[in-house]
């Protein structure tokens, strides 16, 4: 299971992609965020950290499944 990282989140994590085994993978968006913030404390310094599920902003309680496209969205700064 892969997670995509962008912008400063990619820099903090040190990669544009992380691979999780099915076992260690969290069940919900909230769970994923907790896990990432523990593993990469620097992510806590960001003013926001959103998760995208299949190219849409996800809410905390949404469940993750094997085939989802998952991405970590640090504060956007386009335009």
């Amino acid at each position, binding site marked *: 299971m892969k997670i*995509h990282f*962008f*912008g*400063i989140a990619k*820099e903090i994590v040190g990669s544009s992609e992380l691979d999780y085994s099915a076992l260690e993978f969290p069940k919900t968006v909230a769970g994923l965020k907790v896990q990432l913030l523990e593993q990469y404390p620097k992510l806590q310094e*960001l*003013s926001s950290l959103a998760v*995208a599920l299949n*190219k*849409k*902003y996800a809410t905390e309680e949404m469940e993750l499944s094997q085939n989802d496209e998952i*991405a970590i*969205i*640090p*504060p*956007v*700064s*386009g*335009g």
Partner: protein
Amino acid sequence: MDINIKIVDQIDCTRVYEDLSHPGSGGVCVFIGSVRNTTANETVNELFFEAYEAMAISEMEVIAKEATAQWGLNKVIMHHAIGTKKIEEPVVLVGASSAHRTACFEACRFLIDTLKERVPIWKKEFFDNKKVWVTPHP
């Protein structure tokens, strides 16, 4: 409804009227965002833009449809550039075409404001002796 959305290497501003003109429109409003030579009094050398492309396009579509519904637009355009951009280069182009001018002005402002809030695109600023991802703090 006629929505024109793109992530591009270079913004082409020369076609903007062609892209937005419409027989039912009396007004077209366009905003072009560009690379400014300073930010918070520091000299900027260039910017780098990265996008989560598929999601950026789908978010822009949502925004364009919202604007079309709210202001009864005839046409909408939203183009964003990625990659390295030098001072004075355009990085984003949004525009709206409507029967009357108030609608296209309000819609155009909504397009750029909402793009900046929601569309997954990130900007890195290059200064003389540092480079930083722009991350708006609360």
